[in-house]
Each structure stands twice: as structure tokens, then as C-alpha cells.
């Protein structure tokens, strides 16, 4: 933890609807670039090769091989029962039945004939149900792991400050709300000086307001700590707000893995087939007018979006939903649409709900993808086929930041 001052008044104001909405604030991410270089050199990275075959009633089949970056947040995303939690538990040493290799930053925690016991692995684990020790106070819970790693008073004070735990310290565990419990659990895990922080759906048991609160804390922590996070979730908003590196899992197998934006925007990603299909682009604020209209610089070209809290220089993550993109054969200057981009049709596929999902390359950069969801009737009327040049229109208000 670098203790870097970090305050962002806008973050706390996000309502859950906005989080699920079109634009996700990604904040400054200086780590973004080195993240993948590090992964390429492989020396510091996290290597997993896990297998578990459980027959019988609770039949289960897990087989994954992953190399993860050793900084930033890696999100494991997928439906329940897909083995996500088992991966975290195996890394923590809580699943002795799982076979394979676990190497974290050049330490081998598991290999054939090697099994470092759980209490000797430098992990922090935040469980779905916080599992605070019920016979101890909040402070005693925080001190439990901290004492055992020989933590310093400064570390303790900093953690308490960072997570606003001071007013809770003397409380009994039974007198905490769900959100407070998870904050304590998060602090308790961070105080064990982990080499990796494992988070197993830490928000799943919380209501919308508490989720948003804890997400804010997580986003801040992400900025100030160098500990890699491995975060398991099945919620789209958590995934798109927190992930730097993304792993899509289903049925005990990795379906896709890579830098978060690449995976989220990949047209074959299971995400693209969902109702909330869309692409995510990294953008920076160029200008902001008196009405809060932002001019954004993005790999797609210039975008206009509404963002009441952003100022020039901010870096954002913008999610453009396929349902907010319409297509035209000619460049209309007489419509209310502010975002009009030249695009070329790459492919047509069937989306959810009997609609067509059109995969487009946007602007002058052929790698930059855009998705549009339109009806099959429109496909026929405009005679849309691969290679066709079109204009994509996105309402600026659909891109709320």
C-alpha cells in the first residue's frame, strides 16, 4: 500500500443504475500498460494449473491453466457452479483434492509432492459471507492475522483509516451490518501482508446500496495497493468496473482470458450474446462544456457523452451498449445524434430476443469493434451484409458517465 492520497467525490455518487449503465468510470490506470508486459516476461506472474474431478452426487470437473499478471485486478467471471470459487480455495490451500501447480511470484505453493499448508501461504481471502470470528470484536478480528505476520502499528492504522474502520473497532461482530462486515473482512485480509488478495463474490450477500459502497472502497484500494487482486463474480457491473484482466469461465473450463477490454469487446465472447451486449472503450476527457457535455478522445475517434463529474484529463471506461447504436446508410446532419461514426460491417449474428447483432469496425482503426443491435427487418431493409460501409449513430445521453 503506497498510502497515496486518493479522493474522488464522483465515485460515491454512482447509483447502481449508473454502474450498470453505459459508461464506467475507470479512473487513472497507470498500471494498465506495464500489466501486460509483466505478464509477457512471465517471471513475476501467477501460474496456475488445476485439475479436480469429483465423481458421484456432487459431480464436478475442473480443469484450468492460467498465467495471470502479478498486479492489477484479475476478474474470474462466469455462472455459479463453474468452479470459480474452487480456484480461489485451491490457491489458498483449502482444497487438498485439487491437483496441479500453483506458483505465485516464483514461490511454488503446490506441485506434485508439494503442498504448502494454508497457513503458510501469503494470501488474503475475503469470503462471500465474511466469516468474521464470532467470539472476537472487530479490532480483535483485524489483529488476528496482523499479529501472526508481525504487522506494524503503522500498517494497522493505515488500514483502519483507508477502510474507515475506526468507529467499528470496539463493536461485537453481531452488531455489524453486512457492508460493515465485508469492510472488516477486507481490512483483516489486507493486514496479513498477502502476495495475492482473493475475493470470492464479496458483494453477493449485500443489497444495492451496500454493494456500491464496497465497490467504491475496492476501486480506491485498487489504485493504492500493489497487491494483485483475484476477484470472483457473476455480476457484470463488478466485472466491468474492476477488471484489468478478465477470465471467462463456464463448466469448469476457461472460455476466454486476456486483457479486460479485449475480452469484454470480443464479439465471440459469451458477454456479447447477452442482453446487455456492448463494447467497452478506454477514453480520455478532452473538453467539457457548461452543460456537462464531454468531448472524449477514444480509439474510435471523438465521442460525445454526458458526465457531470468529470474534468478534462480524466480517463474513463465507456461502455457502449449494442442497443444504443443505430445504423444509417448516409451521414445525417439533420438528426439529434451527436455521435456519428463511419463504420464497416464485419459480420452479422443472431443476438438475444430475435434481433440481429451487427459487428462493425469503427473509424479508421479496423481493430476497433462496435456492436449494434437492430431488428431483422432493418437488416433486410438496409440490405446489410459484410463489407458494407455505414454510419453508426449513438445518442450522447446514452453515454452517461
Amino acid at each position, binding site marked *: 500500500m503506497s498510502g497515496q492520497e486518493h479522493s474522488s467525490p464522483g465515485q460515491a455518487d454512482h447509483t447502481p443504475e449508473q454502474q450498470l449503465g453505459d459508461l464506467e468510470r475507470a479512473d487513472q490506470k497507470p498500471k494498465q500498460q506495464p500489466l501486460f508486459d509483466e505478464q509477457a516476461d512471465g517471471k513475476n506472474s501467477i501460474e496456475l494449473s488445476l485439475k479436480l474431478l469429483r465423481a458421484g452426487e456432487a459431480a464436478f470437473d475442473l480443469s484450468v491453466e492460467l498465467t495471470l499478471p502479478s498486479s492489477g485486478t484479475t476478474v474470474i467471471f462466469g455462472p455459479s457452479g463453474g468452479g470459480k470459487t474452487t480456484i480461489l*480455495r485451491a490457491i*489458498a*490451500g*483449502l482444497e487438498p483434492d485439487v491437483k496441479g501447480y500453483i506458483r505465485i511470484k516464483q514461490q511454488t505453493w503446490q506441485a506434485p509432492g508439494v503442498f504448502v*499448508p*494454508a*497457513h*503458510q*501461504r501469503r*494470501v*488474503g*481471502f475475503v*469470503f462471500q459471507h465474511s*466469516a468474521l*470470528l*464470532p*467470539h472476537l470484536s472487530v479490532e480483535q478480528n483485524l489483529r*488476528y*492475522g496482523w499479529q*501472526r*505476520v508481525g504487522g506494524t502499528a503503522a500498517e494497522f492504522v493505515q488500514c483502519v483509516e483507508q477502510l474507515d474502520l475506526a468507529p467499528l473497532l470496539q463493536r*461485537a461482530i*453481531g452488531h455489524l451490518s453486512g457492508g460493515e462486515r465485508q469492510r472488516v473482512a477486507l481490512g*483483516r*485480509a489486507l493486514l*496479513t501482508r498477502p502476495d495475492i488478495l482473493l475475493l470470492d463474490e464479496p458483494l453477493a450477500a449485500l443489497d444495492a446500496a451496500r454493494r456500491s459502497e464496497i465497490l467504491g472502497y475496492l476501486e480506491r484500494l485498487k489504485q493504492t495497493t500493489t497487491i494483485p487482486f483475484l476477484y470472483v463474480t457473476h455480476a457484470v457491473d463488478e466485472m466491468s468496473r474492476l477488471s484489468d484482466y478478465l477470465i471467462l469461465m463456464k463448466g469448469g473450463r476457461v472460455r476466454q482470458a486476456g486483457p479486460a477490454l479485449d475480452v469484454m469487446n470480443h464479439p465471440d465472447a459469451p458477454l456479447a450474446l447477452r442482453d446487455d451486449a456492448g463494447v467497452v472503450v478506454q477514453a480520455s476527457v478532452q473538453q467539457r462544456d457548461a452543460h456537462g457535455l464531454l468531448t472524449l478522445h477514444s480509439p474510435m475517434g471523438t465521442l460525445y457523452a454526458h458526465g457531470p463529474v468529470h474534468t478534462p484529463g480524466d480517463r474513463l471506461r465507456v461502455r457502449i451498449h449494442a442497443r444504443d447504436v443505430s445504423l444509417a446508410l448516409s451521414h445525417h446532419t439533420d438528426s439529434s445524434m451527436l455521435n456519428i461514426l463511419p463504420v464497416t460491417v464485419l459480420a452479422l449474428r443472431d443476438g438475444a430476443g430475435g434481433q440481429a447483432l451487427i459487428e462493425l469496425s469503427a473509424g479508421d482503426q479496423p481493430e476497433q469493434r462496435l456492436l449494434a443491435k437492430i431488428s431483422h427487418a432493418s437488416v433486410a431493409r438496409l440490405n446489410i451484409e459484410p463489407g458494407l460501409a455505414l454510419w453508426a449513430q449513438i445518442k450522447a445521453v446514452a453515454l452517461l458517465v
Partner: protein
Amino acid sequence: MTAILAALWVTLKLATLTTVILLLLGTPLAWWLARTRSRFKAPLSAIVALPMVLPPTVLGFYLLVMLGPNGPLGQLTHAIGWGSLAFTFWGLLLASVLYSLPFVVQPLQAGFASLDTSILDVAATLRASPFDRFKTVVIPLCRPAFITATVMGFAHTVGEFGVILMVGGNIEGETRVLSVLLYDRVEAMAYEQAHWLAGGLLIFSFVVLCLMQWYGQRLSHLQGEAR
């Protein structure tokens, strides 16, 4: 009066030592029984529970045979120079440990079985070694079970009679405990002393059970508050 004091001393010494030994041996045994899926669990549980249903004289008879000069235990103790344990305090202690075993193991086993084991995973990720986890998580969370086991083990040892008579006999200051002394006094038609002994044991048992009930009520009240 000196006879009563001597018997009281033997009884307390026996009950205390028995309880301490049973807590030390019974805890790992109860932990194993609570968590194992081994096929030996059923026969082992049955062996632990046997003293509850077996006539104490049966247990005493077999112990006497085993401890005697021709029994396997007797031969062992003779070989290492301890002589025969039958009709000694140490023989009595061995008998009491076996006789009170279920009263210590069963409450502990129930306590361990009701413990949410995920809390141990949590403690492990907080760098607590297995022994550390037992000390700082299992014992505090299973405290009621430990208290019940201690009280039941102690009280039940104070109340034993048949086994003692078979294995230890009636030697003042060595193996004569309060319940045996009572029997002895009744045989000798000394009813006044018998009344004192019987009344004392009755009150002791009643008070112990009352305290246990109160403790249980207070505990469930506290747990209700915490929720």
C-alpha cells in the same frame, strides 16, 4: 469422621485426575469422531458409549481380570516393576477413566460437530497453524461443550460405585471413596453416618445439575442477544 475425610480426599483426587486425563485424551478422540467419515467411526463410538449401558460390575470384572497377575495388563505392570494395579488407587484411576469416558467425549463430540468448519478455513488464511486454530478458535467457540464435559466427567466419577468396588475394594485412604464408604456404613448399620454421606452426595449432585442448567440458560440468552 476421619474415615469420611479420608474418603472425601480419595474421591476428590480421583475425580480431578480422571477429569484431567479424560479432557486430554477425550478431546482428540472427540475431534476425530466428530469429523471422520471412516468406517471405524460406528464401532468406536459404540465402544466409547459402552460404559453408559454396561452394568458397572461387568466393566469392573473385566478390568480386574486384565489387571490381575495373569491378565495382559497385570503382566505388563509386573514386568515394569509396578506390581499389580488391582486394589490400588492407580487401578481405580484407570477404571474411572474408562467408566466416565462417554460423559466427557460425547458433549465434546457434539460441540465439535456443530462447529462451522468454514471458520477454520478463515483462520488458516489468517496464518493460524492447526494447533493455533484449535486454541484460538475451536476452544473459545466450543467452551460450553468443554464446561459440560468437565462437569459431567467430574460428577459422574464422584458417583461411581460398582466399578470401584470390583477393582479397588474398600481400603481406607487408598481406594475407599464416598460411595463405597456409604455402602460400608449401611452394612455396619451406622445409619447416622450413612445419612450424612447420602445427603451430602445428593446435595452435591443436585447443585451440580442446577448450575449446569443455569449456565445453559444464560448461554442461550446471550446467544439470542448476539443475533
